[in-house]
């Protein structure tokens, strides 16, 4: 058939049960696109489950840049199982291509045990309202006839049976190849069926296992051809987003890499989703060797709990080692007391905090931005710390290094905030630019020769004292969580108390003075926007960045002068800069809308706490699924036009 349209950007969804190769499909697809010059982002949604529950991957592929958002309707959707068809029937639209297993046509939703009752009831309600028969056939018929979807039913079983003939793969193992059906379905939708092209992906995935690469490539290509024969395919513009090579990394990976580059040589952790993959990745790279020799190694230490993780990191930090730990909400809570200790004892340490759906165990495999309060205020006493939040993979890399620098410079605990959306999204990433990257260790000293005894908490040279790690000759030091004198030895003297309290908090105020606000602690996007023109200023943080920047662009294209204010530091908060922007926008009659992934507007509250500015418009999402481009654009328009205060988003199965 003829290719229909030429796209610079495509939206892809693949779905199937957990543990059935969906991650393989996603990885293979990402590499296929990346190795041919496309920018890619892929986000996997999954239940807190190992095998069997529904999972899906949303991808955006762009020919000129690495996209940082998702959108619907999807151009193509390829599903492994019946559940995917049942839950994603609304994700495709006119001309979308949907590939599914014809062998499942008779499956009724009632028989899909892995769908929980509440979801089932909701879907049945919806089907009923639209007169859809609750079977796979019913859904696909509806999509085909009422929605204009190009539905392709393939008989997966007979496709897989080819494996036995051609590659003597026993039937029992053949199920593993469903992932290549999915790969084929997707690439086929874009008119790609070349084995050469497809092989790139499988080669990356199954490094060195020739036979597996070949058989998978064969199936994928076969399916691609079949799909191409049945639909009007989409055509992607040539991939020009990547030149020589690209990193293909998750947010977890990129933080791990940033840490190694930034000099972290001790990372302690207790496994927790979605933080753990960072530590696993580091664990696989404990030895740092390159062709120019042995560059040392990073000790990655799996502890018995998160209290031990932060405790061990603090211990390591006292030796002058750059030390970090990575965790998520529940684990972070357990670190609170030690954060308070680190503040009191002025020990530089970095805690990488990956937010997930809360409270409590909440929705551990879903995304959220709701640990901001905890990041800022956990730990008793007045314990200001530096809190910075990354908006995308690029920021995450540099922030991982920056966090260590800030910890060393101000001898404070630093919380590096990320979220599951960012952590688990796999993207193509330009090789980092190290030309501006410095390793700043602040007042750390490696020798001490003064005649007087070393004072770890000396008050004589500003609020920050020289830090001699354990082992430095002539510089014995003492640390305590109790109030202490300049030597670090206990004191309850009221005057000493006052001086030390003021010393510590002055470091925070110093950071507030020294770290630039505009462009560093908060970023107005797009860069060239004229703030006095802005009618709609979205304020957000973390992974909202990607979609908000794009939404602002779309809105501007539609005539609404929109911009996005990206908050990167919540402490010290860029109060002056944010205040000035907000008042400029308000002065010219523009609206300020808080966009974030929680029900309370946590960031809006922090803005209010720091500036007195009350933000009263909200676009919030708390389903655990990412904000999609279209829903954000629509919500923004609604707020602009209907003068309502709050839109709650809910797109995504």
């Amino acid at each position, binding site marked *: 058939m003829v290719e229909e349209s030429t796209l610079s950007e495509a939206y892809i969804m693949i779905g199937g049960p957990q543990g059935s190769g969906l991650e393989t499909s996603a990885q293979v697809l990402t590499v296929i696109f990346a190795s041919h010059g496309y920018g890619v982002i892929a986000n996997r949604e999954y239940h807190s489950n190992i095998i069997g529950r529904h999972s899906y991957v949303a991808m955006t592929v762009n020919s000129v840049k690495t996209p940082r958002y998702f959108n619907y309707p999807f151009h193509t959707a390829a599903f492994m199982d019946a559940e995917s068809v049942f839950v994603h029937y609304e994700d495709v639209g006119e001309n979308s291509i949907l590939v599914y297993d014809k062998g499942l046509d008779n499956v009724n939703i009632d028989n899909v045990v892995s769908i929980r009752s509440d979801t089932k009831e909701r879907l049945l309600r919806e089907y009923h309202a639209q007169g859809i028969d609750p079977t796979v056939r019913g859904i696909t018929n509806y999509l085909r006839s009422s929605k204009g979807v190009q539905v392709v039913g393939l008989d997966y079983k007979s496709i897989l049976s080819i494996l036995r003939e051609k590659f003597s793969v026993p039937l029992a193992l053949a199920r593993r190849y469903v992932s290549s059906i999915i790969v084929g379905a997707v690439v086929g939708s874009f008119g790609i069926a070349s084995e050469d092209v497809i092989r790139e992906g499988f080669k990356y995935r199954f490094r060195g296992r020739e036979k597996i690469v070949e058989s998978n490539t064969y199936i994928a290509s076969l399916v691609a051809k079949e799909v191409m024969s049945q639909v009007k395919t989409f055509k992607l513009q040539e991939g020009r987003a990547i030149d020589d090579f690209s990193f293909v990394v998750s947010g977890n990976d990129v933080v791990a890499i940033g840490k190694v*580059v930034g000099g972290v040589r001790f990372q302690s952790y207790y496994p927790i989703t979605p933080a753990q993959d960072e530590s696993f990745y580091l664990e696989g790279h404990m030895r740092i060797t*390159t*062709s120019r020799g042995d560059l040392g190694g990073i000790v990655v230490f799996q502890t018995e709990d998160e209290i031990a993780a932060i405790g061990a990191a*603090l*211990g390591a930090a006292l030796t002058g080692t750059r030390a970090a730990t990575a965790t998520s909400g529940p684990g972070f809570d357990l670190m609170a007391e030690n954060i308070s200790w680190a503040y009191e004892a002025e020990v530089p340490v970095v805690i990488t905090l990956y937010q997930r759906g809360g409270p409590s165990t909440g929705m551990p495999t879903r995304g959220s931005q709701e640990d901001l309060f905890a990041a800022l205020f956990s730990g008793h006493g007045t314990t200001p710390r530096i809190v910075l939040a990354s908006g995308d993979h690029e920021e995450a890399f540099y922030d991982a290094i920056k966090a260590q620098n800030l910890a060393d410079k101000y001898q404070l605990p630093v919380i590096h905030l990320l979220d599951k959306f960012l952590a688990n999204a796999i993207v193509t990433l330009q090789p980092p630019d190290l030309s501006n990257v410095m390793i700043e260790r602040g007042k750390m000293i490696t020798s001490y020769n003064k005649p007087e005894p070393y004072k770890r908490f000396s008050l004589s040279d500003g609020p920050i004292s020289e830090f001699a790690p354990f082992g430095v000759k002539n510089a*014995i030091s003492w640390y305590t969580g109790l109030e202490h004198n300049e030597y670090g030895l206990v004191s309850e003297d009221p005057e000493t108390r006052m001086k030390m309290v003021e010393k510590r908090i002055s470091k925070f105020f110093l950071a507030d003075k020294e770290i630039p606000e505009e462009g560093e602690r908060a970023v107005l996007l797009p860069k060239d926007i004229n703030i006095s023109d802005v009618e709609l200023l979205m304020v957000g943080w973390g992974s909202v960045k990607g979609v908000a920047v794009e939404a602002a662009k779309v809105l501007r294209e539609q005539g609404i002068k929109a911009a996005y204010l990206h908050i990167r530091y919540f402490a010290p908060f860029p109060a002056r800069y944010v205040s000035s922007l907000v008042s400029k926008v308000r002065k010219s009659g523009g609206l300020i809308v808080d966009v974030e992934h929680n029900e309370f507007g946590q960031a809006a509250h922090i803005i209010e706490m720091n500036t007195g500015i009350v933000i009263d418009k909200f676009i919030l999402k708390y389903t655990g699924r990412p904000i999609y481009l279209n829903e954000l654009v629509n919500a923004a328009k609604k707020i602009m036009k209907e003068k309502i205060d709050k839109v709650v988003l809910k797109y995504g199965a």
Partner: protein
Amino acid sequence: MARKPEDYRTDLWVDWCPGCGNFGILTAISQAFAELSLEPEKTVVVAGIGCSGKIWQYFRVNGVHVLHGRPIPFATGIKLANPELTVIAIGGDGDLLGIGAGHFVALGRRNVDITVIMHNNQVYGLTKGQASPTLPYGVKTKALPAPNIQDMVNPIALALASGYTFVARAYAMDTKGLKEVIKKAIEHKGSAFIDVLQPCVTYNDVYTVQFYRKALYKLEDDPNWDPVVKSPEEEIEKKTQAFIKSYEWGSRIPIGIFYVNPLKPTYEERLRERIPTYLEKPPAKQEIATNGGRPVLTIKDIVEVFSDRIVYRRKRIN
């Protein structure tokens, strides 16, 4: 240069109650440091919170006064980041076996080369005399409103079950014996635990100096007592013999070395299998920046080290 115990002491006034067993422990540790001639800059005392936990400030070696229950994680982090340091973790019975029991068990699984010294006074001293995890059931010390409702945990048995490779009990008032045990524990390669019976004159009117004077006897006085594992096959036998001994508690209480297993690799040795240069260039001793303050890893290094995350651009699609 011979060092004296006083060289390892700060000049702070020691604010334990007069007669407290902690004084003996302070003395014994200082003596052990001196006799081992430890470099003060390369020695770290990590202490918890409690009367016992106050000890850190009285040593002129590096000191870390951590949170209640957390000496072991801190000590572990310090040691693994800089294995050149001699690291001693000190805590009370509440600290190490109450709130810190999870870490206590975990250290046993690692055999990190640190020494854990527990001040066992059967009470929570600093919070005014509540029952600690080592106080037996039914015993009523001074500050309790009623006899203790919980059983005691057996520290020696727990250490054995957790995997410590050096397990001993000593008595705070026998500074010489205690000092010897401490020296052996520090010299032992691996996780060492010493349960130090420590009279609390203010809150513990049951396990007093008078009581211990009658009850204590020394394992080493039995010429047949041999706590050392000499071959892997002996491990369980020696452990069992120590386990049985550990339940002698009452009118006769043994002190001395219960169990030593020098055969297990330390955690540091195990780390070398993952990072061959670990001992020469441990975390604390690696250069992480060039002279110009730039990361030691160049972009080329990064691409090499993380090659599993690199995708190269191939020919054009279509």
